[in-house]
């Protein structure tokens, strides 16, 4: 995924941005399981919205349709990118889906 929304770093202000490949796996640092979604996720609830610290650096936000209740996920859980069926960034638990090598 290429993101061109930013022309400078929101943390330090430097405009010298580099493109870098992101790791495909990571660790959940914060999450919520939503039972009341917005209109674009009407048929997907409940699901988790997650903030993931990627292996090799960088954080991304994404969502996990496989998570149906708070007990299905924990901070510290290992997750990885999976091809999504919607425009968002989709993750699955390592325990639930094939892990990219």
């Amino acid at each position, binding site marked *: 995924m290429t*993101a061109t*929304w930013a022309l400078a770093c*929101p*943390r330090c202000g430097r405009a010298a941005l580099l493109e870098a490949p992101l790791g495909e796996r990571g660790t959940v*640092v*914060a*999450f*919520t*399981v*939503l*039972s*009341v*979604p*917005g*209109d*674009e*996720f*009407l048929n*997907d609830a409940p*699901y988790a*919205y997650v*903030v993931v610290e990627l292996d090799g650096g960088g*954080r*991304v*936000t*994404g*969502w996990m349709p496989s998570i149906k*209740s*708070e007990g299905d996920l924990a*901070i510290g859980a290992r997750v990885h990118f999976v091809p999504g069926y919607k*425009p*968002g*960034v989709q993750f699955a638990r390592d325990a639930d889906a094939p892990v990219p090598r």
Partner: protein
Amino acid sequence: MREAWVVGAASNRFGKMKETGREAATRVAFEAIRQSGLEPKDIGYTFVSNCFGLTEKQGHVGPLINGGLGIPEVPSCTIESACSSSSAGLHEAFVHVAGGFLDAALVVGVEKLSHLDTLSATSYFAEAADYPFETKNGATFPGLYATLASAYQQAFPMKPEVLGSVAIKNHANAARNPHAHFQKEISMDTYLRSPMIASPLRLYDCCPFSDGAAAVVVAAKEFVKHPVTEPLVVRASARAGSITEMQDRPDLLGLPASRAAADTAFRQAHLERRQIDFLEVHDCFTIAELLALEDMGFVPRGTAGTAEVDGVTARDGKLPVNPSGGLKAKGHPVSATGASQVVEIFEQFNGLAKGREVPRTDTALAHNVGATGGSCSVHIFSRR
């Protein structure tokens, strides 16, 4: 810089308005001006906030309000800063009055959402988030604060009763506020049994979708001369910004904009935290009240829950927080919220907060956040 005063502040009852946003805005503006002892023709500029006016098929609402007040020749503009819109308007009014560019200014915030269903309202609220990064990944407004709550709980484990105690306190305060959307107390049992909206936030952790309108009149001390009410001296009017997106924040504990705005405000006011008698803070969700108290330096990080449970923040506590009932129970008509915090402080200073008086009313602070912390206003007021 000149001394600027809040000389009038009025609100309608939050909840469900029959009239249009524009009508409600005109009504509260008229009332705030009447209270101030000034005439509409004394107003030099109207700063209006109405984030979701387009859902009523109405933009450019300032000239309509001014027309309804009999002052169509007065300039106006619309100020948008999500949930902190009308405190951003107040900041503009302050800057212009204190800077000598205006003698008096009107700040109006209004929102009407009750003509929308929950799904549409949820979706409109989410539009203050970062659309490609947050909304496209399923975030909602409660979902984003719930994400912050999960990170907070990880760092500082707490029982559900802690957030519950915030909800119970603010409902108890709102039950004594005729402007409030919810005018009934709730029990811990009701709180704990309310459905999960976005874990760990339950229904009673969340502010309601409210209609409402509030208006504030700011004027230069030298222009007012003989105030007819007890004015609020604006000791500080500070705004700050911080990274909006969850994934770009250095950490997820608190909202950096709250800290920055509060630090600036206390520097401007030459006051210490302990000199503040009571607070109106941005508690769109119960977790947000804990974050506000910690971010602004009233309690150390990780201890706001204990302060809440111990009654420090109760109406008769050492540091009353949200005697109005807060966004949580007074309601959160997005663009009206910032102005309505000032209404509460005005009523407390003027002995109009019958049945919900706080013990000391010499100095108060209002804290108003835009969305999840992309923007924040902090105002400090004191008596003459």
